[in-house]
């Protein structure tokens, strides 16, 4: 039985040090929800508040309509997966997985059935009677996952569960986690600092910085229409350029004088200095004499599918461009080119960077 989780005006501080000033958020029933942010942004702190290992200094956290602030962690019916697996080293895989069921005093044959079933689901049945020290990192993480979901928790919490695994295993495991979460349908909060991992697994993502939620949206919406410059830079890579917005004329005027037709302004946008965020793949490289921003190629990296160029713009800033590799030769260093942009994709922010003035931004924190 899974639940929705409501965070209402949550405050977290250690002494006088405020970690999370005032956070409100709704996580939907059965959803795979990710807290994403740089280290120290408060995402793990928030997760541990849900788990009951951190106190809540203000506001409430509720599962459905039940406030859990004062509920003991062992009574919250939570499954938790830790960064360092936290598999009990003195118990076999089977005993590890059965631990939570035994605490719930279920009959022995039911425990056995459920453990067998979950071990099958996470594909570690063959190691059931081994001690964890004889398992690889990926296998131990599967044990931790099985142990957390076998108790049919209301909420599954995962704290950077893949960060101790190597790159290849990480991709394999994140697919497995996604698949298993969908099949059991538990409301899941997942914490990571890896934006690619977050995009791969999540239904929705909350990007956090300095204890404040910056943007909550689906991966696609986050990437394509970030709510502010921080999100644009944190999710994927962005080149930022100064420009002037001229909404009346549906134009962006760059400092170099180049004018780009742009009609994606929000209604309330005014003529003002703005920051234009362009992702590497949103540039269009043209011949030098075409209209655009002039740039000089500094270096290039051939990566198979794509080729990355590092260029210096005529305004003096450097920028990164990604182009699908073509069969013709790579543009040599020192060549001057003219850059245009895929105008339906780029994003425009206020000059402070804290708000997007591009049409189509979705933010559904459901405060």
């Amino acid at each position, binding site marked *: 039985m899974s639940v929705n989780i409501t965070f209402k005006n949550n405050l977290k501080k250690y002494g006088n040090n405020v970690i999370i000033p005032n956070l409100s958020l709704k996580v939907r029933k059965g959803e795979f929800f990710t807290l994403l942010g740089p280290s120290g942004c408060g995402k793990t702190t928030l997760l541990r508040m849900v*788990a*009951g*290992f951190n106190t809540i200094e203000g506001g409430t956290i509720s599962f459905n309509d039940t406030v859990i602030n*004062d*509920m*003991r*962690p*062992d*009574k*919250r*019916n*939570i*499954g*938790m997966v*830790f*960064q*360092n697996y*936290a*598999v*009990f*080293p*003195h118990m076999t895989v089977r005993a590890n997985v059965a*631990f*939570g069921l035994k*605490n*719930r005093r279920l009959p022995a044959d039911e425990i056995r059935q459920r453990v067998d079933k979950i071990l099958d689901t996470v594909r570690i049945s063959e190691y059931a009677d081994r001690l964890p020290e004889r398992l690889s990192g990926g296998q131990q993480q599967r044990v*931790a996952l099985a*142990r*957390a979901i076998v*108790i049919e928790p209301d909420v599954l*919490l995962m704290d950077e569960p893949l960060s101790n695994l190597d790159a290849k295993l990480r991709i394999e495991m994140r697919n497995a986690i996604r698949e298993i979460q969908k099949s059991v349908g538990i409301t899941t909060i997942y914490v990571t600092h890896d934006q690619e991992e977050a995009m791969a697994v999540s239904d929705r993502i909350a990007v956090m910085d300095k204890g404040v939620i910056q943007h909550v949206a689906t991966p696609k919406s986050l990437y394509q229409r970030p709510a502010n410059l921080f999100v644009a830079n944190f999710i994927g890579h962005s080149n930022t350029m100064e420009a002037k917005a001229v909404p009346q004329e549906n134009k962006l005027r760059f400092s170099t004088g180049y004018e780009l037709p742009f009609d994606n302004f929000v209604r309330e946008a005014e003529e003002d200095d703005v920051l234009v965020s362009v992702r590497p793949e949103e540039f269009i490289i043209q011949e030098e004499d075409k209209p655009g921003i002039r740039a000089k190629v500094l270096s290039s990296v051939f990566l198979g599918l794509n080729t990355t160029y590092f260029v210096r713009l005529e305004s003096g800033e450097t920028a990164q461009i990604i182009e699908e590799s073509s069969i013709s030769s790579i543009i040599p260093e020192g060549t001057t080119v003219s850059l245009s942009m895929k105008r339906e994709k780029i994003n425009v922010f206020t000059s402070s960077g804290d708000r997007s003035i591009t049409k189509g931004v979705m933010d559904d924190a459901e405060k």
Partner: protein
Amino acid sequence: MPKSKRQKNLTLLLAGLLFILGVASIVLGFMGKAQVDFFSRRLNMTTEEWVEYAQGKPVPELTDSDYKGRNLTESGKQKKALQEYIDKLTDFDHFIMPARYVLVGVGIALSLLGAFLLVRREIWPLVTVTALLFYLFFLIYPLASLLKLAIVNNDGTITYEYFQRMFSRAYYTNAIWHSVLISSVVTVAAVLIATPMAYIMSTTVIRGAGFLQILILVSSMSAPFIGAYAWIQLAGRNGVITNLLASVGIKLGDIYGFKGCVIVMSFQLYSLVFMFIQGAFKSLDASLIEASESLGCVGLRKVFKVVLPLLLPTILAGALLVFMRAFADYGTPMLIGENYITLPVLVYKEFFSEIGGSTGLAAAVSVIAIIITATMFLVQKYIVSRKVFSISALRPVEKKKVHGWRNTLAHLYCYIMVGIAIMPQCYVIFNSFRNTSGRMFAKGFSLNSYKEAFKMVSRSIWMTYLLAGISIVCIVILAYLFSYVIVRRRNILNATVDIMSMFPEMVAGSILGFALLTSFNKRPLLLSGGMFIMVLSYTLRRLPYTVRSSSAILRNIPMSIEEASISLGASGAKTFWAVTMPMMAPGVISGAILSWITIITELSTSIMLYTTNTKTMTLEIYSQVIRGNDGVASAISAILTFSTIIALALFFKVSGKKEISM
């Protein structure tokens, strides 16, 4: 809605009170029992009889038959003493003596109930409070009353008379000087023996090195005074070597006194320094030595310029430990020191001597001893904490094979030194199998000594294992609880528990025994004269080591393991029981095994606290030696040594380690 916070706090308070009440009741019960034992033993009657009188059964009047002429007969004296004791009893005594079993029973029930209520919440504040009360009552109070004895007169005024008397008489100042001198010389000797040996055994291939290691360990773990005893048998006035040399005309000097103490202690204690240095060698990177060689610094120059400076902090740390042990040793100077009196011996004599002894003086001497040992201890801790290289080596120093005379010399040195150290043990074991007739050794071999030992002193053999067993159970339980609050619930109170738990290490065993004895010797705090105070002293003395090894292992267990258990629905108590405790077990158990060895081989505390009912093996060896009953003494010593070896084997099995750190 869950219960309000206020209500919760109230339950917590109530449960805490119940628990403390329960514990207090248990202590009262034990005090009652100690009193009953004390009086009934004095009066030579059964405990039941005494309790009946204490409860008001009329004391039989003195009749004519109780007089022999004008003098009282034995039965008359007893009746008179009984009346005197009963007149002395207070209401408090009337309450606790008959109720002693009820008190213990109710106490256990209450504390269990309190503990149960608390376990359902959070037990750790309770552990902190219990720990602080435990140390306040059984450590701070005894040491404070020791100080009080030293500076407060009978009439309650502060006096420096005892200190003045102590410093004005050569008898006392000499004892202090002797102790410092012996400890210093032994320390230097131990370092001089151990350093070359550790260097040789860490850098060169020595045949049978593994075997030598075991011998070194066994000699370091054996009861100190057994060495003294064996040396007397070998090189004493009537010793085997003395007689052998005398028969070819060589007259050996006297082994008694200062010389004897130094020889015995040096060869027993050098192993501590050896193990310290050997441990340090394992964390010394080979490239450092190779770098020095490539820079043209080789041979002895390399040793003095590179190796020794790197090892110096470790050597110092080991040396100070040797100093502490030598300073605290009671048995060795008592047996082989003869008129060369040291501080622990002085305290014992001053306190127990029938004539001329003064408790105040003994206390003053103890205070001086504590100041010296505590200083040494703190200096040692400081040096260990500043240990220069604690990084583990990427590539440890390899043992090389040397050839020619160097090889011979290296082997000779190691074998001779280890040989001398283990010789007393071997000789004692050898003696234990010799045939005896009466108290003398006879030709041939037999198990007579063992038979005799079991016939005469089987009680003390079992008593030793019983006392050590109970102490170890207490130590294990307390080590689990204390180290948990120290490591996992860091706050000022638990930091205090941490410091307190280390404190007994700074106090020599006999001094701690003396402090306990003087503070729990009088009603209403009468606890001495039973197993309780012996177990208490062993627990206090050995807890530091076990708490340390338990804390070390707990620090390596990530917090998330416990959180995982809690998130899976286990309560805090269940988590501790099912997850934390099993994971801590190797550290706690291995600490406990080493503690067990030191308890069964310990003499200095026991000799202050024992009664005929609680005589241990070491005490029995001691009194058999004094009586000249060498066969039995050897047999009990051998049993002790075998117990030690078995326990050591168990230690290595449990801990999976290859060496012991002190």
